[in-house]
């Protein structure tokens, strides 16, 4: 089972995604993709840790090559989030890489090994501002990845101000 959870900033994606694991009996893994640089990253990590406390998640970190994460087969995995994974892959060598197909195939490989894969992603294309080429390419890549994962997902949910809206069931 693969579920994609999307939405804008601070709309309750993580809280909703975590709620999908309340009935899971086996191992629950929180697969973090954010590299902890800077004060805001640390405070976001701390806030998410508090939210997960007592929910029985083990934390794994994998910043690129997500299918290589060392997670026991058959686990229930909460991957957070696609926006960071894409940034890490796209700019991994200090240059811009075309990595949309790679990320999608990594995800599909990871999914095969897991009992449940919930992916938190982001909506970043809804402000219609002019961006530099790198940012514009990032927006396009995330949109394409989201579409491809949604196509393969069993369910797609968009969170809006804490309200989960089922986009695909």
């Amino acid at each position, binding site marked *: 089972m693969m579920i994609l959870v999307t939405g804008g900033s601070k709309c309750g994606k993580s809280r909703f995604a975590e709620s999908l694991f309340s009935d899971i009996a086996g191992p629950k893994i929180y697969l973090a993709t954010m590299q902890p640089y800077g004060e805001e990253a640390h405070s976001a990590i701390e806030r998410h840790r508090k939210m997960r406390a007592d929910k029985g998640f083990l934390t794994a970190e994998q910043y690129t090559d997500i299918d290589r994460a060392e997670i026991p087969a058959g686990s229930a995995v909460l991957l957070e989030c696609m926006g960071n994974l894409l940034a890490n892959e796209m700019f991994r060598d200090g240059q811009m890489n075309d990595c949309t197909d790679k990320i999608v195939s990594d995800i599909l490989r990871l999914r095969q090994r897991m009992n449940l894969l919930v992916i938190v992603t982001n909506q970043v294309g809804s402000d219609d501002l002019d961006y530099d080429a790198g940012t514009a390419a990032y927006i396009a890549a995330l949109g394409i990845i989201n579409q491809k994962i949604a196509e393969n997902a069993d369910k797609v949910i968009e969170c809006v101000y804490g*309200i989960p809206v089922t986009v695909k069931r």
Partner: protein
Amino acid sequence: MILITGGAYQGKTAYAQAHFPYAVTDGAVCEFDEAKDAKILTNYHVFVRRLMESGIDAEASTAALCKDNPECIVLLDEIGSGIIPLEKSERVWRETVGRAGCILAEYAHTVIRLVCGIPTALKGELL
């Protein structure tokens, strides 16, 4: 409380006024105190920024608004679905608007989102 959201220029104010013949209080310019008597409070995302610029806790104020003005129709632009801003103050504002939206949506009996002038009920029924 009714929360009406959606991106900028999607027809939120027109939708609110089509269903309620009330005067509009513009959160972008009104006095902070006017919010608790407002019937239709627009531009709440700008209201949040003004609160923050005045050193007021916008999340606590939003919770207080729910208590003090429980019948208010609040209009809030969705601003959190673009690229994370480079400026820290803009990042914090954008996140605070998201959290304020969650507080309002939880309290509201009805939440409507407009896209291209078309309303969708996220909570409760269409007006």
